[in-house]
């Protein structure tokens, strides 16, 4: 059973207050791709991400992970395949110690405590945070918190990693480490971000969202280099592309 393909078909979502956040979003992301979701504030990026693991369910249209449509019934299974890293690590780190926090997911998925601790240690090792295993999460720096929250998701061995603004609040060194880490993952990655330099380094494809609609989609360089398009949607052409000379 492969869960590596993520597909949205004409997804609509309206918040209870009446705000139409998504107005017919469609895309298809295949195995191992790294896709950035960009767009101005309020474009619907976070709303879209919340549909990928069934936190929100579409009012119309559907989201499919592998062969399964995301519904209330399939959501628990989908969440094993789709690891979600939240925008604010403080929302995600709620256990008394780092190790317990990372082990939270594996325990919930029925692993025995020893096996769950083993998994948690491996995940912490993977993100370079083994030394913090016994610390309480709120003592960590923003970069460390981010790394631990990613470990918490990795410990579930997901097929797809979904991240909301992974580089926000990080200092340059923390951001650099994060990018190296993300590049080292073989998972299918879906990253919502305003950090366009990160997109250039980590992703291969871009989905540009604005007003709840996909405005553009394509290879990173092609979309982000389109200055009029970028400016029209509250973005800008990344510096690194400006100075990159095609051979």
């Amino acid at each position: 059973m492969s869960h590596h393909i993520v597909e949205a078909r004409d997804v609509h979502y309206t918040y209870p207050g009446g705000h139409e956040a998504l107005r017919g979003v469609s895309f298809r992301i295949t195995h191992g791709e790294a896709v950035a979701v960009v767009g101005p504030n309020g474009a619907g990026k976070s709303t879209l991400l919340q549909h990928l693991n069934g936190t929100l369910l579409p009012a119309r249209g559907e989201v499919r992970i592998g062969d399964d449509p995301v519904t209330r019934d399939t959501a628990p299974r989908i969440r094993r395949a789709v690891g979600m890293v939240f925008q604010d690590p403080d929302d995600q780190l709620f256990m008394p110690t780092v190790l317990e926090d990372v082990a939270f997911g594996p325990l919930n998925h029925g692993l025995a405590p020893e096996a769950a601790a083993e998994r948690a240690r491996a995940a912490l090792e993977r993100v370079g945070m083994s030394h913090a295993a016994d610390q309480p999460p709120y003592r960590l720096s923003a970069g460390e918190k981010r790394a631990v929250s990613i470990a918490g998701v990795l410990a579930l061995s997901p097929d797809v990693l979904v991240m909301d603004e992974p580089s926000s609040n990080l200092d340059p060194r923390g951001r650099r480490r994060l990018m190296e880490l993300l590049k080292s993952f073989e998972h299918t990655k879906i990253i919502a971000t305003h950090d366009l330099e990160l997109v250039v380094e980590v992703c291969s494809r871009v989905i540009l969202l604005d007003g709840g609609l996909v405005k553009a989609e394509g290879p990173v360089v092609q979309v982000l280099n389109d200055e009029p398009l970028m400016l029209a949607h509250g973005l800008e052409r990344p510096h690194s592309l400006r100075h990159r000379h095609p051979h």
Partner: protein
Amino acid sequence: MAMAHGGTVQRMDELAALESPAHRLDARAKAVVTFAFLVAVMSFPRHEVVALAPYVLYPVALLSLGGIPARWILKKLLVAAPFALFIGLFNPLLDRQPVALPGGLFVAAGWLSFASILARFALTVSAALALVACTGMDRLCAGLERLGLPRAFAVQLLFLHRYLFVISDEARRMRYGLALRTADGRAPSLRVYGSLLGHLLLRSMDRAQRIYGAMLARGFDGEIRILGTARWTARDALFTTGWLAFFAAARFWNLPEFAGRLLTGELR
């Protein structure tokens, strides 16, 4: 107050993560013994003061075994003390029946019940705090669930603990924002406080929602699972039976009076 609270919950988690003989005891043993302790202390007649004395042993033992700083507990007691004070405040005025004390002194019975209320307050609150500080809310809730507490209650208790931290965190940020925009230390009007409280509620609810979402995203299904495998050992059995026997003894015999008679040689 709000600030102190955020610190309290975090500090409680830190203390609960310590390693000590008290921490290694099974959460169920500590929960059962503490519950028996509360029942025993509350079951004394309302003028009893002296017979309560032996019960000090339990929180003191748990705290020293667990390496919990006594100052921390005392501070928490002080914060909560006004509640107990107000509950007992009118007893000396309302209950004026004279009671003879050893040494030929007479006091109003109300003073005794007032002292009794304060003693019980100090005993029960410190025992409960010691229990949580030596166990941790997660392990305690998991233990209570295994003891047969309905899962819904155990999860509620766990969330109460988690969200207390969330609310205090939000409150701290808002207080900071308020302080920065309040001129020359003047207290803001009641209207401002009303609006602040409303915002605090909304923001806490939003945040609670996000945390719950994060828990669901990692497979939370209502069952509390923890890393430390709790195994009931001989030590837990000894701890439980030992304390239960002591509480029973101290309940049925007035141990301090007994000790006093022993010393003065009245018992022969």
